[in-house]
């Protein structure tokens, strides 16, 4: 609650023309927004772009923030929309592909990130499997999983961001977890 009040005070100061105020908002939330974007898009470069576009959109539409929701929920909503728009653009550009969309997304998510030499092969393999499984989820389920696992938002916060009933959020997460377990089992995760 104290953070939320501080965020609202920052927004008010930003509306009066204080450029430092919005910078503090960016500093406070950029990691969380990046984590959300990375979880949804699966690629660091795309996540960076989406995060930047999220804060730029928030800055341009600062007057449109009516204070009905928390600043964090508002930022998350913008970030989710940015990620969805990026995914649609990517889908339009690659319309000629015959492969299953879920597999395409899984392939994107499976692109290896920078690998530390200290990591074991098994650890790397499991990460790749989890990335592919999350990427293969339908967008509506992936949103909930990313917000819960990456952002560590509460069910109520996810409900506010996505404008969904609380029970819908929980049921979607339950369905996502079932599908993840199935895919991890299908990808041969030995420990599952």
């Amino acid at each position, binding site marked *: 609650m104290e953070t939320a009040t501080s965020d609202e005070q920052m927004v008010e100061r930003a509306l009066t023309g204080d450029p430092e105020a919005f910078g503090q908002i960016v500093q406070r939330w*950029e990691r969380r927004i990046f984590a959300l974007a*990375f979880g949804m898009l699966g690629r660091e470069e795309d996540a960076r772009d989406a995060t930047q576009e999220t804060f730029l959109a928030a800055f341009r539409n600062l007057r449109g923030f009516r204070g009905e929701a928390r600043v964090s929920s508002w930022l998350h909503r913008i970030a989710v929309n940015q990620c969805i728009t990026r995914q649609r653009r990517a889908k339009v550009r690659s319309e000629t592909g015959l492969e299953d969309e879920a597999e395409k997304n899984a392939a994107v998510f499976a692109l290896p990130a*920078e690998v530390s030499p200290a990591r074991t092969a098994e650890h790397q393999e499991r990460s790749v499997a*989890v990335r592919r499984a999350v990427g293969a989820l339908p967008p509506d389920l992936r949103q909930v999983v990313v917000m819960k*696992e990456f952002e560590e938002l509460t069910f109520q916060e996810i409900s506010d961001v996505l404008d969904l009933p609380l029970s819908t959020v929980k049921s979607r997460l339950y369905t996502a977890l*079932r599908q993840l377990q199935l895919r991890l*089992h299908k990808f041969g995760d030995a420990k599952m």
Partner: protein
Amino acid sequence: MRNMNERPVCHRAEDLVTYLYGEANKAEARDFASHMQRCDACRAEFTVFHQVHDSIVAWRNEALGSVLVSEPIKSSVAQTVSHSTPFVQPERKLSALAALRQFFTVSPLWLRGATAFAGFLLCALMGLAISRFWQTPVEVAKNGNEPQFNQSDFDRKVQKRVDEELARQRKVAEENVPTPELAGTPNTRKNGNQLASTAVRSNSQPRNRLNKQEREQLAADLGLIPGREDETPFVFPDEPQQ
């Protein structure tokens, strides 16, 4: 591991995820814990879901830990914030264009074609409407070649014809004064002189202006007013005999 789809599903799925992520209050947690002791399905799913959750957390920590989120994003966003004039009205135009651009980017090919065709059709209809609006109206057909007069034109016309007629009469009278047939007898000559002098006198003296009725009559006689040819023509009182 047994296939997930073969495992029975309990009706308390939502309570399971609430308990799994630690958002249940004490009473709810205690209740679900006791339920799990009796329900094999929930107990099995809780175990599996916990492993999935741990795997995702491990991936998240690894992915976010290897990616530094600091200067590149902050500096670019901060630059944009500092260089842009906040809340300037032209932003509204940019967002509308950006929204339109985004619409065409994400819309399928058939929708773009349909939009372009609709725009072309609209422009064609507007051009047709504008061309019809600027066309000069067709003139109303007039009744023959008859001139249209107002009252002053009418009076002027009548007066002109009267003057012409008087001039003609004067000329005729002057010509009739020294005629051979009439020159033979003094009386005839005298009568002719009288007539001529009368005619000259009458023509030289200014006539009284015709009243309205007399003008209309004269105009009908002279053919200025159509449809009144059958009326009795007006006769000058001093018309010389020929």
